[in-house]
């Protein structure tokens, strides 16, 4: 977060307007088959990701148990939907609020304990908490629905302005609306005194105590607010999937949001949005094409941590910065060469992995596999040689071009930094 004093400006309205427009138009642009379900899912996960980044990116709190809040929010939301009591008075459109309030209430409860600590201890408590809750969820089937979870029917009560929430598209727009509101709210949070102090606590909790702030309170309040938004996302997922089960409060859920947010880049407000798209792409879309998607996700994540620890957003921003300084002309050629080599290597790797998967998991149905309309016999040497050649070519090429690219890249960046420093210093 490098937000500095900038008066209200047109640019900001443009960004938000564009975002809103994109949300409205998305279903029209992506109208094929499963697009709507995927978009809906991305929307809920985005809220969850942003709320997680409030903790990690803004407040420096590495949590392994954020699903506790979204999950409990989801459970309360679904019970509200199923109840004939007060819950029945809440229209479906406002059910996410029930989730939010529930998430927040548990934020108040659990946060009081967890935020007493920070750093690794905090991380471990949250891990313990989420495992605890997960184990509990099987012990109290009355509330958590046991192994099978709790199901609901989102079409309930009278239709309000023709909205029954039966058709997926209505659900999508509900999610989009909540996504927009939540994003604005969470962005606004980064621009408040508490939001800024959360940054300060992240950077140097010790010093914060000497400028009048109680670090624990800063963390606690941040967590409560973050839990609120997590709860909203939980409520939305309850509406979207019409089922909530123990998985909603699992360490796996918590871990995957950490993964997504990190992929997007924790240092940037919009990072989680990007990370979610990539994450859902892997887990929902890629999984339709290949059983190896988790391997690819793992590889991708590891490479990212290794080569761009600040996430995808940082990569993009760096490129934009170079382009902004009108130096793109100098890097595009080596960049292209390196990317091309990486691509070639990747083709070989993917081919190898796919064949290996086929050979080990699907061999009973014959050794021939079809990918992209090509029938490949995995028991013959040919395809393996091709894959190997691609991989080798990629690696050799990469080693050949990478140093040159590296040199240009660091040159250019050093110049930009120098320019900027020169500008301010």
């Amino acid at each position, binding site marked *: 977060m490098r937000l500095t004093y900038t008066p209200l400006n047109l640019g900001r309205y443009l960004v938000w307007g564009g975002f809103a427009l994109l949300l409205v138009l998305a279903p029209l642009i992506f109208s094929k088959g499963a697009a709507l379900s995927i978009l809906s899912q991305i929307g809920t996960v985005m809220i969850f990701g942003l709320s997680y980044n409030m903790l990690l990116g803004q407040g420096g709190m590495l949590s392994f148990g954020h699903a506790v809040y979204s999950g409990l929010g989801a459970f309360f939301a679904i019970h509200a939907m199923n109840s004939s009591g007060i819950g029945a008075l809440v229209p479906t459109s406002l059910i996410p609020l029930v989730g939010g309030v529930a998430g927040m209430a548990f934020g108040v409860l659990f946060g009081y304990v967890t935020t007493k600590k920070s750093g690794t201890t905090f991380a471990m408590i949250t891990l313990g908490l989420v495992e605890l809750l997960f184990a509990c969820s099987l012990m109290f089937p009355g509330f958590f629905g046991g192994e099978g979870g709790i199901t609901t029917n989102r079409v309930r009560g009278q239709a309000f302005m023709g909205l029954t929430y039966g058709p997926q598209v209505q659900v999508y727009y509900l999610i989009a609306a909540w996504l927009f509101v939540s994003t604005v709210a969470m962005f606004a949070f980064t621009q408040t005194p508490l939001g800024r102090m959360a940054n300060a606590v992240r950077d140097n909790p010790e010093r914060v105590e000497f*400028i009048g702030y109680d670090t624990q309170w800063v963390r606690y309040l941040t967590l409560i607010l973050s839990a609120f938004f997590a709860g909203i996302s939980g409520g939305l997922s309850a509406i979207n999937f019409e089922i909530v089960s123990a998985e909603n409060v699992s360490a796996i859920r918590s871990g995957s949001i950490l993964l997504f947010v990190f992929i997007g880049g924790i240092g940037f407000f919009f990072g989680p949005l990007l990370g979610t798209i990539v994450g859902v792409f892997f887990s929902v879309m890629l999984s339709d094409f290949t059983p190896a998607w988790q391997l690819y996700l793992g590889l991708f994540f590891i490479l990212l941590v290794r080569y761009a620890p600040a996430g995808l957003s940082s990569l993009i921003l760096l490129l934009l910065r170079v382009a902004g300084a009108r130096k793109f002309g100098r890097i595009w050629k080596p960049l292209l060469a390196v990317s091309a080599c990486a691509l070639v290597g990747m083709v070989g790797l993917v081919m190898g992995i796919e064949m290996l998967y086929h050979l080990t998991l699907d061999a009973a149905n014959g050794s021939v596999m079809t990918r992209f309309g090509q029938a490949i016999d995995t028991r013959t040497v040919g395809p393996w040689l091709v894959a190997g050649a691609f991989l080798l070519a990629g690696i050799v090429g990469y080693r050949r071009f990478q140093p040159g690219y590296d040199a240009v890249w660091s040159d250019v960046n050093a110049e930009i930094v120098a320019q900027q420093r020169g500008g301010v210093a």
Partner: protein
Amino acid sequence: MTTAALELKDVRKSFGRSEIIRGANLTVQKGERCAVIGPNGAGKSTLFNLVSGRFPISSGDICLNGNSISGLRPFEINRLGLSRSFQISNLFDKLSVYENLRCAVLWSLGYRYSFWQRLNGLRDAHERAEQVLEQIGMQRQRKVLAGVLTYAEQRALEIGITIAGGADVILLDEPTAGMSRSESDAAVELIRKVTVGKSLVMVEHDMSVVFGLADKIAVLVYGEVIACDTPANIRSNAAVQAAYLGHEGSEEAA
């Protein structure tokens, strides 16, 4: 006599079995600049840590403007109007210089844990941050992240954060350590400027700074204040000579 700004009464502190502060007594009047000197390991930084609430005291009492502050947490003490700097710079590395300062003024301006106000809409916070920025002469580095500042700049920002909240008792721990003569002269000027009308307690090894700035010098040796007097008297105090100053002459030649 009015109440003292800061008063230490027989303060003691032990870590484990070793007693580091052994009954320190010190009074700093309002508007006074007091330097604490003493050999390495005498407990000067520890004393600061006790006063600012970083460590609890083992016994004795510390009063700020006549009210006891022993047992309070650092942020509570800060809210009562005492602020301190650190011997090793302690900044918000990933925030810009301007944001560092703005953070430091928020509480004193009453914004507390507000998450319903827009930071950029807070005129007074902005103005106060700008003012401090100007005082420490870092307007041009306003957007630079604190973590990448040069050493001297970090020291200046350290002082800036300390004074930004407008506390009227200020504790500075070796504010000029590691600075060159010219930088340290500038720092002295800065300190003089920003502490007008306030009470200042500082730890310093650089005698020219000490003698240039302090109205009063306290000498801490082995956890006890063995002398507390005007600079002139301290200079001629034999016990101080023996315990601390040593070859005073050679130091000044440097």
